[in-house]
């Protein structure tokens, strides 16, 4: 894994290392199986269209899992995710597949965030962050917040 992040390395406004994501119809099916959430609105276009949502769309909980990956990758093995919340403000539609393994050209999503508050509470070195998933147009479709504990150089 990458070099461990320490609490002292983070300043207010520090950016979480962004992670690109490409949602595909294939990824949505993988997620449906892995999560056990078999809502057809995420793999059957006509079902989603009947709900007024155009075609099968990205599961909110998959985007939430992307945000967990954003934060846990940033804090490294010695960091601990304490809290994470997000809201599903806008719908995202996956890319179609061009081959068995590759998506068609199209939108790339980015998971991003920045530190908003640094503090020590109950002997834990904590950071609050704003986090979000943005679509290909740069719109934040899934904004959220996270609190993490990081190791401190001041402690053994």
């Amino acid at each position, binding site marked *: 894994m990458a070099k461990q992040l320490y609490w002292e390395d983070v300043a207010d406004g520090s950016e979480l290392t962004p992670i690109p994501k490409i949602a595909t119809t294939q990824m949505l099916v993988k997620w449906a199986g*892995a*999560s*056990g*959430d078999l809502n057809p609105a995420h793999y059957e276009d006509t079902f989603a269209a009947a709900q007024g949502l155009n075609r099968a769309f990205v599961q909110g909980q*998959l985007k939430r899992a992307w945000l967990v990956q954003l934060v846990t990758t940033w804090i490294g093995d010695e960091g601990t995710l*304490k809290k994470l919340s*997000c809201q*599903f403000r806008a719908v995202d539609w996956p890319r179609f597949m061009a081959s068995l393994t590759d998506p068609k050209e199209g939108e790339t999503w980015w998971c991003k965030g920045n530190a908003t508050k640094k503090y020590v509470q109950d002997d834990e070195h904590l950071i609050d962050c704003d986090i979000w998933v943005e679509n290909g147009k740069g719109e934040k479709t899934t904004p959220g917040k996270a609190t993490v504990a990081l190791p401190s150089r001041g402690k053994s």
Partner: protein
Amino acid sequence: MEAEEVKQKFAGMVGEPIVNVVEKGSIKRYAYAVEDPNPLYYDEEYAARSRYGTVIAPPGFFGWPAKPGPMLPKLMLDLLNGLKEAGYPNLLDGGIELEFMVPIRAGDVLVSSPKIMDVNERTTKAGTKMVFGTIETTYINQNGDTVAKARQNLICLPGA
């Protein structure tokens, strides 16, 4: 049923507990689906050397299936049917809040119990009535430790 009656009936109601084993294979499939390459979730030797001593689940994974079949816990279906009757058939996902207390290790057995925390009818400044609800699910492991809480917020809009 009016929205106030829905509140009276459902607020504080606890759903049937669900037991899930957090299996290594289901952790691996979950990480693969997210496309999260963190070796803590699948590399047993790497995970054994970590401070966890074993493979852990990504935060937010509480075993498979994440939602019991067919799609929603009965408690939530009953609540949504009540709100539909009260004139609020259109459900929006108001977001989720997760709180993590104890890491979840491969092999853990988690008991989850959903509870309807609140159901409130409110009128917006624009005069639109909406119902806000929160379902909190607590996850307890085989040692009796509360490992996590998930608060799911619901927004129900009026409609035909």
